[in-house]
């Protein structure tokens, strides 16, 4: 939950200070000079491999501790056990769990829908708040208030309002995803170089063109920071939402595993969350690299 409350630096139009969350990006801040990362291409990949070492060490330790019985298999199943559990969950349809890929599909669907709704609203609201004083006065206080609200404290309220079907789950994900994306997009828009807005005026850009060609691209680095935080919160909200009253999905599998005291199933589901989280983060990084090529321009000369 800490992820959503970490974005505090974005109040009152104070512009560029990036509301950097976990693993703050090298690309934060609209006006920041492009960072020189010499010889990006190959050394980047090499660095990528280096980064795999420590997780692999952790996994190896895990395996050793578990197999040697330092910690009982009941508490910490070995990786090989987890692997066979995963294979079993994928290849057979159990009455207790369904299939792992089925659960994954359902969870992905919930996150996608929730994120699309929340993210869409967030960007629209941020544009409204970012482009006019009136919009800021209308939208920002509400969003700032929502930001301080403990997301998961809303669950009982949502259950009363929306029942126990998909609606409360998706609402929770949407709300959780919307906040960081809104905050960062708003700050990003306010941080757009005023001289470029003036230029747009001189060039006779229409409002739509101004937003499309100047405002949103200018805010993009911050929007992408917000996007990563948002996706993080979305996954988080999903886990919680799915453990409340679901009969399918990864959270449901965890719940069942808890009920039947099958630690290995819980761990498998957690690993799937982890992989999906890393995957979405990776996708955002790809988008980032493509969308911000113009910053690299300076290094090519």
């Amino acid at each position: 939950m800490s992820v959503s409350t970490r974005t505090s630096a974005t109040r009152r139009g104070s512009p560029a200070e990036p509301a950097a969350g976990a693993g703050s990006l090298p690309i934060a801040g609209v006006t920041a000079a492009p960072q020189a990362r010499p010889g990006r291409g190959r050394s980047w990949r090499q660095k990528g491999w280096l980064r795999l070492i420590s997780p692999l060490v952790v996994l190896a330790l895990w395996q050793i501790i578990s197999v040697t019985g330092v910690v009982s298999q009941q508490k910490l199943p070995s990786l090989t056990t987890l692997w066979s559990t995963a294979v079993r969950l994928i290849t057979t349809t159990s009455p207790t769990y369904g299939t792992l890929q089925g659960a994954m599909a359902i969870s992905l669907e919930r996150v996608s829908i929730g994120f699309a709704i929340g993210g869409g609203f967030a960007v629209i609201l941020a544009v409204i708040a970012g482009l006019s004083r009136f919009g800021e006065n209308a939208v920002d206080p509400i969003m700032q208030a929502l930001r301080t609200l403990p997301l998961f404290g809303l669950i009982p309220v949502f259950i009363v309002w929306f029942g126990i079907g998909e609606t409360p789950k998706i609402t929770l994900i949407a709300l959780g995803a919307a906040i960081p994306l809104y905050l960062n997009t708003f700050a990003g828009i306010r941080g757009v170089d005023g001289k470029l807005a003036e230029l747009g005026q001189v060039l006779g850009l229409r409002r739509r063109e101004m937003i499309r060609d100047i405002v949103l691209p200018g805010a993009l680095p911050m929007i992408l920071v917000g996007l990563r935080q948002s996706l993080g919160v979305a996954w988080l909200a999903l886990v919680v939402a799915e453990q409340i009253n679901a009969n399918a999905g990864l959270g449901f599998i965890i719940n069942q595993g808890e009920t039947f005291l099958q630690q290995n199933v819980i761990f498998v589901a957690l690993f799937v969350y982890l992989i999906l989280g890393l995957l979405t983060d990776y996708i955002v990084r790809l988008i980032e690299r493509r969308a911000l090529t113009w910053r690299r321009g300076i290094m090519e000369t």
Partner: protein
Amino acid sequence: MATRNHGNLAAERSALGSVAGQGVAAPEVGAPGAAASGVVAQTSGLSRSFAGHVVLDDLDLEIRSGEFVAMIGRSGTGKSTLLRALAGLDRDVTGGLTVSAPVAVVFQEPRLVPWKRVLANVSLGLRASDPRGVARSALDEVGLAERADAWPLTLSGGEAQRAALARALVRDPGLLLLDEPFSALDALTRISMHALVLSLWERHRPAVLLVTHDVDEALALADRVLVLADGKIAHSATITLGRPRDRDHPDLVALRIRLLTELGVATRDVDRE
């Protein structure tokens, strides 16, 4: 935005004819010929103050079609304020202000949109049937055709400012506002930019208002040099020499001293007079 009397071509420049250094006063450069084709911008009693501090004070100015006007003045005398008012960027001026031609602006810094390639920068907001085609030929005109697909951050200062010129030109302005566009460039680049601006002006004949700190720049380029002081036009001088001009021409030397005096810069030459 209605009247756009493009190019009084009758006032063909005799720049080619006048040998550099001869300083032969070319017949009626600018003034009378252009007057016939009308006024593109006019202010009467234009005033602007910032929190009680008067920057423009009841200023009257007329810029005629096709005319090259340079405005000099010390910092803080309202040059840029006037230019911004003419560009429609300042809604808080009072007094009369009429601009009857499309306006384009080149700012002190190139102000290219960094996330758009050079060509897209030039065609940005352009309402033409083939914006990219028109933009490409404008880039060609400023000698930047081969950088059309470059990112702005990779351009040199001179290249970036040429792209900004192309972006202004491509809009076919009747009034081109240049806000110290060469001040950030090195001396050599500045000289070639002067030549470029002159050739573009001669080809397209917009009225130009060039704001500058540089008296020599004004003398090299303008038909008319205005000195702005205390929010008013303190001095106006017409230059009828053909271009390119020899900066040592006696008329220009005399005018330089005069202008520097107006600007409050004491020179030995001034003392001698």
